[in-house]
């Protein structure tokens, strides 16, 4: 069974869901507490979960991005380990410099909690969802508006780093971007929650298809 490190920060509340989801899908998740160092070679992949790490104080994800274990995550990324960020995890990876761009407050000024339909755009050998016409996943966020300055945005498209877009943009994200890949295509993140779409009784089981990429 593949061992997946699940990073754990104070204030995160979606970490147990993804841990359970990974177990359900026959992976072997292991907790990585924010203060503990780890050896990336012991794991086949990593997840940075959603929630409100450090209360979203200062900026969502910024305090988590300064945690003692982040240098080990950066090292894991350099070793081409697959890393998935979900919601607050996306924010943390951007603040840590592992992904481009930033997530800003939703255009409407409201926290939005709804199902969204996503379109796979670019892919990599690991994070390949291009065989799917679309994915139905839920969002629940107040600060999910993807932003990048014009040069960076153009580079994202040119380098095929736009992973997923919204069919109907719920939050004002530039170019409807819902998820991105890093340049080496091993680190990805998205605002929607795949761990909340594992079984059809949840509303969709499309989250499985995403998580099975590990």
């Amino acid at each position, binding site marked *: 069974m593949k061992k997946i490190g699940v990073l754990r920060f104070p204030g995160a509340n979606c970490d147990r869901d993804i841990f359970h989801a990974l177990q359900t899908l026959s992976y072997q998740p292991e907790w990585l507490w924010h203060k503990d160092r780890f050896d990336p070679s012991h794991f086949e992949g990593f997840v940075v979960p959603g929630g409100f790490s450090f209360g979203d104080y*200062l*900026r969502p994800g*910024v305090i988590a991005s*300064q945690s003692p274990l982040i240098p080990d995550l950066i090292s894991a990324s350099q070793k081409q380990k697959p890393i998935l960020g979900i919601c607050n995890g996306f924010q943390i990876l951007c*603040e840590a410099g592992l992904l481009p*761009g*930033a997530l*800003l*407050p*939703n*255009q*409407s*000024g409201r926290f939005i909690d709804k199902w969204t339909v996503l379109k796979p755009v670019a892919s990599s050998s690991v994070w390949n969802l291009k065989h799917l016409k679309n994915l139905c996943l839920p969002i629940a966020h107040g600060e999910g*508006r993807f*932003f*990048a*300055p014009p040069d*960076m945005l153009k580079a994202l498209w040119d380098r095929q780093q736009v992973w997923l877009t919204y069919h109907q943009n719920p939050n*004002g994200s530039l170019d409807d971007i819902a998820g991105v890949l890093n340049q080496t295509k091993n680190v990805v993140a998205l605002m929607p929650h795949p761990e909340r779409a594992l079984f059809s009784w949840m509303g969709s089981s499309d989250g499985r298809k995403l998580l099975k990429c590990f």
Partner: protein
Amino acid sequence: MQWGIRIMPKPEVLDSSGRTVLQALKREGFPLTDCHIGKYIILNLPTTDSQRAYTQIKNMAEKVLHNPLTENFTIEKLES
């Protein structure tokens, strides 16, 4: 020695909270054309060397306190 850091969203970024407050104030009948919301951080440093303190504050601002993609910051020395 007390220092203040003022962090504001860049003008090219949509400031949704500023816009929300602008609309609320206008609804209340207040005359204004714009509103932007940022944050102000006060730090206390043990050093009395202004130059050194300024450099340290600038490092903190650049490394952690502001996001260079979306925010600008200014630093001021406060009356202790």
